[in-house]
């Protein structure tokens, strides 16, 4: 009864603006990674390695790589460009915008963390980006990348968070829908021609976790 009176008195007050809360990210539990240790091992050989991270800045990853490897990390969030082009309906501009954010200096990077960026790109953009990454990679440098194996519409972006030397967890955020460009293993090898696929593991999430190494 008291609650009813409370409700009545509240309804008599002027209507307040409704607060729209930000989309809640969905976090998955940590899963084991067979490929992440290879990445760490490859970088552990370098003194003060230079890592290019093509995903959004993730504080946990920065802290992890920094503490493990005492490295230099440059963050260039390509997903920001992907989302802006998807919202504006200008997919043709995406390739140029992505390449503008990737360094050009040849053999200057020890590792590239691509995450699943290739899933969101059309074939010509995938090829142009892969060429650039191979170009900037130092000999013995590595590319860490995820490829979705299931065709369909992508409605989220996935943040990969390093949860330990052999574990990753993911957090997904809403995205403007994009068609996933599925690459079969043969296409992947062609895309990164000149690099050696050191390890590739199909995860339960139907995503292939892969590491390439430049000879």
């Amino acid at each position, binding site marked *: 009864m008291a609650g009813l009176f409370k409700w009545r008195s509240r309804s008599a007050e002027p209507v307040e603006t409704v607060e729209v809360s930000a989309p809640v990210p969905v976090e998955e539990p940590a899963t084991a990674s067979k490929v992440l*240790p290879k990445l760490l*091992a490859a970088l552990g*050989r370098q003194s*003060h390695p230079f890592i290019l991270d093509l995903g959004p*800045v993730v504080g946990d990853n*920065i802290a992890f790589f920094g503490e*493990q490897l005492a490295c*230099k990390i440059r963050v260039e969030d390509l997903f920001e460009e992907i989302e802006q082009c998807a919202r504006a309906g200008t997919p043709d501009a995406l390739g140029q915008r992505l390449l503008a954010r990737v360094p050009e200096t040849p053999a200057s990077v020890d590792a590239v963390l691509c995450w699943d960026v290739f899933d969101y790109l059309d074939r010509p953009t995938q090829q142009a980006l892969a060429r650039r990454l191979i170009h900037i990679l130092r000999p013995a440098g590595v590319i860490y990348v995820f490829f979705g194996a299931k065709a369909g519409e992508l409605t989220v972006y996935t943040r990969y968070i390093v949860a*330990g030397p052999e574990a990753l967890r993911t957090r997904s955020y809403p995205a403007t829908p994009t068609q996933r460009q599925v690459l079969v293993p043969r296409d992947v090898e062609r895309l990164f021609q000149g690099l050696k696929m050191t390890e590739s593991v199909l995860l339960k999430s139907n995503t292939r976790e892969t590491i390439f190494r430049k000879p």
Partner: protein
Amino acid sequence: MQARDNVNIGKSVVIKGELSGSEDLTIEGQVEGKIELRQNVLTIGTNGRIKAAIFAKIIVVQGEVHGDITASERVDIRDSGSVDGDVSAPRVSIADGAHFRGSIDMQRQGGTSAGAKPIDGKPAESRPVAARPASGPIPAPVPAASAR
């Protein structure tokens, strides 16, 4: 315990030039130029707007910074913080929701890489994942079933 001096630069203050000192400082106003507090803590408050190269012992960013940041101890970018520039410090923490564009250099003072296991070494996939800290040195392999 001795109280630490702390100076506050208010919202309405605009400084153009070089700012240096030997006290902890909180900036809620605008600074353009250079900030140097080599032995102290610098906090850029939520209202702080900085266009400057910053040098301090500890730097906490809650507002906006355009410029390179160098800390001898650590940099802490909070969720309301925004940094466009390069960060150099032995420890860097970036909260979820913070904006960051640039590079982060976490080379240890006088040290080198932690030295993970070589890529062509013994496979590491059989190590369990649970009960392992998210940071710290990579532990030695232990014979165990795959956690996958």
